[in-house]
């Protein structure tokens, strides 16, 4: 019997409408665990570099994590992996919620989609019954509405739905795939739209077995409490008292939109309220006479936080359901507030409206706001004029709405912007390139730092996941000034291997970490995300949440036990790191095969003060050596062979990439 996993993939060929249930080799679990790792293996094996991302041969893979469907709390993050049309490189993103566990209960570890449907369809899965259904009536609908309509149509409220909105249908590079109250970003929605797949709806009622029942459940039962009590996990940003750091250090689109920088005040944070006063006018009889009287009234409507909601089997409540004036209910996806800070308007209602607009279209909050602010900067610089922006509203919020619509529909200037900032800059020309801060053609979190931060640079430049927020998180971002507090932090820091504790103890404010520490930190940070994505644990409980407070519920030293008890696979910290290393090497190899070279590994323009190109190169040298890559950033033959990836080495050698 296979524990924790189902042992089956669902293969869907949209061109031919063919659907197959395919048994997977058990050995692969020990090598890659599952989730994103298993998806990377599929992409390496089946999507050679000749395949264009918009080709029917590109695969779109939805992976449930290895631990989905087991009682391990917070195991619910589904990974979506494909080759990105924006970068022509590997991309993986994910959403939490309920989808992955439901897929496991339907009897599948992954859905592997290939081909293209001639007309819009959605995939309906109910255990062994799988069908492609017409989605013409869902075209143009938002993901939330699509989900509601499918549930209605199938008369099954318990379906879990992942869908694209208008942006995905129009092959917009910032398109998300949305599920419940969360979404997958970095452009995976564009491939779903290209394939003509509007949504996937799944319902499963099968058992998932675990290897060591009593021990596993005992640990899980304690973990519910740990997660609930731990103030440092979940979307801490949502409940953080002070967001001034983010507002100050993240280049705000609000600046370009005419918003106010540094507007954040304690009072605003406490209230976080939208208040709308509107004038209502009606007539009433005056004193039963024949006279009608005009009555003016001020009606006040206020936003309300309805509740914080969780994801499948997680006791955290990261997703705020809020009521907005005007009878509207709205979900803040976790980390929406980061985008909200980026929009940075003094008038909070506008921020909600902007977020709401993006959610309706199915646009990624982070990348889209960057495209918006890019367009506004170009207008300020005279590169975009009234000719490209006809009827451009005068006010900031109006402009934002205008651009969102153009992007989602690919109309006018929106067509270029919908290719992402990098390609848009190339299409627009006239010096627009100078406003592009992408790395490897993809938008980056626009941090402004005073000086070069070694691990930050390495994560931006080399990150397998192409976005620093998907890589950072195990090692603290800042040193602790007070020596006693520092020692106390380290004493309680179960998550870290010993050497990191020493580096942290010696780290003084304002000082650089040693290069050897920086490379190790960048590597460890990314490895933990890779592990989470293979087993399907939400990073907000694990790899992303070590950096503040150092006490994530899950970490390198307790994850292996959960995996062993659930799957029966003997695993320790070292073994987990080795698997993460293997999975990351595959991603590196996919990208090397698709042309990534050392020259592409840069910091985003303007990340930190004055450029230090020599130090950057020194850091890259050290990092490549640490990872066992050659000077071009390609994994060496020994490194690949050492992790059982001989087939990768041979392929890279044959193509002349590995000399």
């Amino acid at each position, binding site marked *: 019997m296979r524990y924790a996993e189902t042992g089956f993939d669902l293969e869907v060929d949209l061109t031919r409408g063919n659907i197959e249930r395919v048994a997977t080799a058990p050995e692969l679990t020990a090598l890659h665990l599952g989730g994103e790792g298993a998806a990377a293996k599929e992409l390496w094996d089946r999507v050679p570099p000749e395949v264009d991302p918009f080709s029917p041969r590109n695969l779109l893979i939805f992976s449930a994590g290895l631990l989905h469907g087991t*009682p391990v709390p917070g195991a619910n993050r589904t990974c979506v992996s494909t080759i990105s049309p924006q970068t022509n490189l590997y991309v993986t993103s994910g959403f939490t919620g309920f989808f992955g566990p439901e897929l496991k209960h339907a009897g599948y570890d992954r859905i592997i989609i290939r081909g293209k449907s001639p007309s819009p369809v959605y995939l309906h899965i109910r255990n062994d019954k799988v069908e492609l259904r017409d989605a013409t009536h869902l075209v143009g609908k938002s993901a939330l509405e699509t989900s509601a309509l499918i549930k209605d149509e199938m008369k099954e409220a318990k379906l879990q739905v992942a869908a694209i909105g208008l942006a995905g249908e129009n092959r917009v590079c910032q398109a998300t795939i949305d599920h419940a109250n969360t979404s997958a970003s970095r452009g995976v929605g564009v491939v779903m739209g290209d394939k003509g797949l509007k949504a996937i709806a799944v319902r499963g009622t099968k058992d998932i077995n675990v290897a060591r029942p*009593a021990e596993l*459940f005992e640990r899980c039962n304690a973990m519910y409490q740990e*997660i609930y009590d731990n103030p440092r996990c979940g979307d801490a940003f949502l409940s953080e008292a002070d967001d001034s750091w983010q507002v100050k250090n993240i280049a705000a689109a609000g600046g370009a939109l005419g918003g106010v920088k540094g507007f954040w005040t304690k009072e605003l944070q406490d209230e976080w309220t939208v208040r709308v006063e509107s004038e209502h006018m009606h007539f009433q009889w005056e004193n039963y006479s024949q006279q009608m009287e005009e009555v003016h009234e001020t009606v006040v409507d206020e936003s309300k936080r309805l509740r914080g*909601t969780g994801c499948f089997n997680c006791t955290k409540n990261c997703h705020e359901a809020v009521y907005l004036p005007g009878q509207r209910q709205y979900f803040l996806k976790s980390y929406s507030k980061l985008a909200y800070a980026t929009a940075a308007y003094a008038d909070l209602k506008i921020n909600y409206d902007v977020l709401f607009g993006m959610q309706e279209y199915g646009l990624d909050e982070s990348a889209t706001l960057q495209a918006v602010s890019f367009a506004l900067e170009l207008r300020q610089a005279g590169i975009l004029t009234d000719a490209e922006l006809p009827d451009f509203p005068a006010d900031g919020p109006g402009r934002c709405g205008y651009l969102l619509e153009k992007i989602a529909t690919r109309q006018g200037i929106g067509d270029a912007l919908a290719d992402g900032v990098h390609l848009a800059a190339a299409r627009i020309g006239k010096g627009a390139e100078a406003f592009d801060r992408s790395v490897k053609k993809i938008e980056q979190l626009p941090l402004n730092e005073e000086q070069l931060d070694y691990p930050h640079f390495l994560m931006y430049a080399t990150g397998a996941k192409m976005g620093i927020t998907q890589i950072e998180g195990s090692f603290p971002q800042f040193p602790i000034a007070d020596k006693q507090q520092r020692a106390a932090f380290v004493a309680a820091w179960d998550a870290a291997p010993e050497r990191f504790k020493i580096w942290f103890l010696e780290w003084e404010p304002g000082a650089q970490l040693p290069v050897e520490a920086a490379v190790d930190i960048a590597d460890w940070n990314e490895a933990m995300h890779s592990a989470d994505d293979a087993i399907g644990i939400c990073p907000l409980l694990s790899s992303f949440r070590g950096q503040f407070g150092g006490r994530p519920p899950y970490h390198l030293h307790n994850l292996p036990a959960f995996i062993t008890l659930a799957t029966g696979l003997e695993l320790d910290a070292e073994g987990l790191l080795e698997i993460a290393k293997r999975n990351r090497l595959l991603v590196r190899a996919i990208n090397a095969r698709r042309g990534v070279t050392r020259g592409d590994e840069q910091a985003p323009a303007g990340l930190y003060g004055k450029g230090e190109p020599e130090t950057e190169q020194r850091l890259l040298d050290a990092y490549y050596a640490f990872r066992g890559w050659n000077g071009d950033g390609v994994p060496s033959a020994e490194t690949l062979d050492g992790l059982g990836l001989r087939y990768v080495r041979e392929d890279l050698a044959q193509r002349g990439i590995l000399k």
Partner: protein
Amino acid sequence: MSGQAKKKIVKEIKVDVEKCIGCRACEVACSGFHASPKYSSFNPARSRIRVVLDLPSDVYVPLRAGEYTAAECTGRQTFRINGKNYSECSFCPASCPSRDLFKEPDSGLPLKCDMCEDEKIPMCVQVCRPGALTYEEREEERDDEPTPGEVEIGLQALLHRHGAQKVKDTFARLSQGE
């Protein structure tokens, strides 16, 4: 039935729908508790508690499985509470032919909450850290009535579905084989 008044421990699970975050940990725990061996498999579809969820409407109702009913209600009712609409069967715990709630997914046999029999605190309550479910025991004077066991409930369902003759025949055939 004796009809004699007796002191009885009443186990009660209090539900605070405002505190429910919709995580469905209760479903996971309940399904694991009733697997055999205990916790060897998990499947919310087998759980004896289900969270009736409607995200856009902010509706969250954890509902424990009650009695099996052979026929669905004649007519339906809907509720509107504090501006929220609750669908017709949101608060009804019955294992009923009108829906697939509280039925074993394979056999269709009805599921019923047994308050986790030997467990001191029911499992769904144990894992519900947000406090939507809390547990209380109290003493009450009650008429002593026999409570049907699992076999009885299952049999009743089979009788309704297939009729007495078929069940008798099948029983005879199967017990000969043993």
